[in-house]
């Protein structure tokens, strides 16, 4: 029979091993564990995951909200819209975020699995911009719907293709291959991009279609808006699509796009807001609306709302109250942070409509 000492020594061995491992990890500097910031009182942690497109503004909001309400922490991870939708349906996060609205099938799956609805709350407006890295070219390129869709269909393969040189008379485009970059992960930014291409090119609509991930005819994949921005920056001859703020913050040149009215429009606060005016007036009750290729002379054609995906039933009363309080703050005070990060504010009519939807969260 095993005696007690050996049992104790075996246990001791295991515990020692664990502690040695930890100790050696912490040993190089006492600074590791000494916590200069006092750990605040035990608080509510709300987990969320999803879109990278609005991540810069979301992390700003959650940080500011935490300053106002030190007892509430929103932990948002930008894992991509596709994963955000998935994790919301799987209920591993308290809420999700996406730039492509959930489709009917996903909503039905959520309803069946969870027993309640997932509500879409528009948060800000943003834009997909075509960004590029052409050695020797710093000019702002003009893209037509035809040139963009045919580049992504693999029909235009050279930078000096007539479809590109035509609208850009002053620019000397080289005779080099175009390297197409798209997203590798499930992405709302991709949804916006493919939604736009589907609207302006029937061949795209029939061959590829719109989704958070599609079967790309050509190109390399990058993970997240960060990944696409990084790939374009490192690859001569590359073209990619990212949310406006990523192009601005990483100093990658991005082009202007011809809109429905035939005008070349640069993505900025005014042109994105202009794209939303039509939708703001007739917002559907579930807020799932596409504003790509919007009418209006000044509308930027690849604009979009982005949404938080909030469960209509939140069992934990504390979390429910905190999420509802956050939504109210987000729709009002928080919108002041948008411009600093080049996102457009929500139209007033949409804010009012969302305020009533908050009451549906029970």
């Amino acid at each position: 029979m095993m005696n007690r000492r050996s049992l104790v020594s075996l246990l001791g061995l295991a515990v020692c091993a664990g502690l040695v491992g930890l100790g050696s990890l912490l040993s190089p500097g006492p600074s590791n564990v000494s916590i200069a910031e006092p750990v605040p009182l035990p608080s509510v942690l709300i987990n969320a995951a999803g879109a990278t497109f609005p991540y810069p503004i979301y992390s700003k909001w959650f940080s500011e909200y935490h300053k106002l309400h030190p007892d509430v922490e929103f932990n948002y991870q930008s894992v991509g819209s596709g994963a955000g939708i998935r994790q919301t349906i799987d209920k591993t996060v308290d809420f999700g975020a996406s730039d492509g609205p959930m489709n009917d099938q996903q909503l039905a799956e959520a309803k069946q699995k969870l027993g309640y609805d997932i509500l879409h709350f528009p948060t800000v407006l943003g834009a997909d911009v075509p960004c590029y890295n052409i050695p020797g070219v710093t000019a702002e390129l003009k893209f037509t719907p035809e040139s963009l869709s045919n580049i992504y269909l693999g029909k235009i393969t050279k930078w000096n293709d007539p479809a590109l040189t035509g609208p850009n008379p002053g620019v000397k485009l080289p005779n080099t291959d175009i390297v197409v970059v798209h997203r590798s992960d499930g992405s709302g930014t991709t949804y916006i991009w493919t939604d736009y291409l589907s609207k302006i090119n029937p061949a795209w609509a029939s061959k590829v279609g719109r989704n958070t991930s599609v079967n790309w005819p050509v190109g390399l994949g990058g993970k997240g808006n960060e990944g696409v921005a990084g790939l374009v920056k490192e690859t001569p001859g590359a073209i990619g699509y990212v949310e406006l703020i990523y192009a601005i913050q990483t100093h990658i040149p991005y082009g202007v796009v011809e809109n429905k009215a035939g005008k070349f429009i640069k993505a900025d606060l005014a042109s994105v807001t202009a794209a939303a005016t039509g939708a703001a007036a007739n917002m559907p009750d579930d807020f799932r609306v596409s504003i790509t290729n919007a009418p209006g002379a000044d509308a930027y054609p690849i604009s979009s709302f982005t949404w938080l995906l909030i469960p209509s039933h939140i069992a934990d009363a504390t979390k429910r109250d905190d999420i509802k309080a956050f939504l109210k703050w987000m729709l009002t005070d928080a919108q002041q942070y948008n411009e600093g990060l080049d996102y457009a504010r929500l139209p007033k009519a949409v804010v009012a409509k969302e305020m009533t939807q908050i009451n549906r969260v029970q």
Partner: protein
Amino acid sequence: MNRLTWRKMVNAVMSSVTALCALIAVVPLLFVLGLLVVKGTSSLNWAFFTKLPVPVGETGGGIANAIVGSAELLLLAALFGVPLGVAGGIYLSEFGGWGVPFVVRYAADLLVTVPSIVIGIFAYAVVVLPVGHFSALAGGFALGVMLLPIVVTNTEQFLRTVPVWLREGSLALGAGHWKTTMSVVVPAAMQGILTGILLALARVAGETAPLIFTAFNNAYWNRGLNQPVSSLPYMIWIYGISAYDDWHRQAWAAALLLLGLVLVVNVLSRLVLARRMASRRIA
């Protein structure tokens, strides 16, 4: 040219070629170390060790929560993987006989080669989905699963180096099989086993893939084992692929820190092993 000079010449040429190859082989390591020191040192400041991350695109802040988080995850991984692994190794070496150990050893070898992302998905399926949320426990479990086969194999190897005559002596003096194992064989191999554990911990400390959908990440301090937690490799990954210069700098610093910790563990384990060898010679 006489035969002797020819042979001397060939000898000189061949030894310099091999020396050059050896040099080239360590160059990548030196490059990695050098690059990390150059790029990372400037961002290693007090705030880096003590502050929480700041919102995207803002400069400053630190990764204190990730440092503590990594320690937490490693402790959990050790609690899960070490007792099981050591016990398994003892069984394989001392009690198993032939059939079962063959299968277990084979399984352990296979488990070592399983890509870490697959272990992450496994932990997501068996811990995260049933429980319903990401947690430090799930991350520790995933790392523990990675740790387990390494510890089993190491423990078994070191127990096998204990000479048979030690076991025979103990048995001849009337001690039972279990008593012999616990009081004679395991203590004799103890330092080797500890070394194996340290190396295994150092190995999993740098893993990102098993943590993505288990430990998730946390922008704040972890407040309990059932809540998401940040970790060093995860932060390096997120900051590294970001588009912000300040995050890039912090990623370099975090990589330097992680590599430093792994090196310390490695050196520590070599010292432990060296002491073991020394004590062996005296015995």
